């Protein structure tokens, strides 16, 4: 079974995401991030697995923030997620620090 998605706001204002970002958790992620605005930093180093549903909500968040003059920054991502972002061309869209 997929593990529960956990989002923790760290002291420096980064949202630390832990768990799988997939069809099961995409809605929860979207809901948890519904209110964030401005420049949002995501630490995805503890996201082991993501699928297209997960990538869709990442792109959706990026677009919403971008439309409002904000920005989505991905501060950290594991090699596996990085590879996925590059395979799906999302590394050309999202800001990876």
């Amino acid at each position, binding site marked *: 079974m*997929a593990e529960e998605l956990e989002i923790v706001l760290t002291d420096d204002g980064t949202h630390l995401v832990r768990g799988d970002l997939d069809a099961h958790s995409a809605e929860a992620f979207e809901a948890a991030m519904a209110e964030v605005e401005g420049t949002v930093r995501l630490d995805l180093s503890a996201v082991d697995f993501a699928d*297209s549903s997960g990538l*869709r909500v990442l*792109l959706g968040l990026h677009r919403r923030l971008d439309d409002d003059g904000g920005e989505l920054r991905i501060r950290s991502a594991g090699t596996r997620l990085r590879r996925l972002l590059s*395979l*799906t*061309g*999302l590394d*050309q*869209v999202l800001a990876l620090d």
Partner: protein
Amino acid sequence: MADELLELDAGDGTATLLLPIDGEQAAIAGFVSVSGVRAWERDAVDLDGLRQLAVRIRLVVEAALEYERRRAAALELHRALLPVVPELADLAIAARYVPVGFGADVGGDFYDVVDTDEATFVVVGDVAGSGLRIAADMGRLVPVLRAELTRHRDAGRALDAADQLCFADRLFATAAIVTVDRDRSVAEVRSAGHPPPILRRPDGATAAVIDVGPPLGAGVGGWSATNELLGPGSALALYTDGLIARSDLAADDGIELLRCALDEAPDDLEAACDHVVDELTSRHPLADDAALVVIAPR
């Protein structure tokens, strides 16, 4: 009656209490059963608790049945949206849609083949989302690609149009379009965030090294072409990531599994498709629906 309690004498001084679980919408055959009830315990049995348990079980079973009905409807709609692959004299094409099975959401995997007098376009893509909604989204995206390819015969332009639709409607999709020239000697690959095709030549199979552009819906655009030679005896496999993605498998390992499966596959394309699907589903069950299209000049 929904909560008619049956009491069976077990013959050993105890009784078994049976409370039927009756479905309201569908027939559910089942009982909540309490056995080994001695005569002096009979009045202590929590009948209200048993009735509540029966109702809960009924609700769970009905929810599962309802889910399956919706999945079946989504799957039927999905299948209806997939085109019939044309029979071409000089290009063999085999396609598969592989659903995960019972209890899972229907995916947004699609394929299409558009044959024009300039080139044949093979499209494979995947819309993110699930359920009936995904079928509807697919049902809008596929005709846009088809119309653009038919009208302009330009894969880059078709991806642009699809990207605009996805951007406007906030869809997220990946797609690859292979343009096969009339000589059937060159396959031009363009990918919008889609995993690389696998090319099989008589001396072995390799994952095509392609330039992957941004996915559809990002509104960024820019899909450059990579040309692959399609010699005699070669085949090209396009697929969606459901075939290679597993939570316990890195993306490149999934692509490698697919490459090996295609390498060992029989020459006949239909048999090759079956072999590839078999290989990829038997060892690692699919987590997501998948599509596979294999083409070969003939």
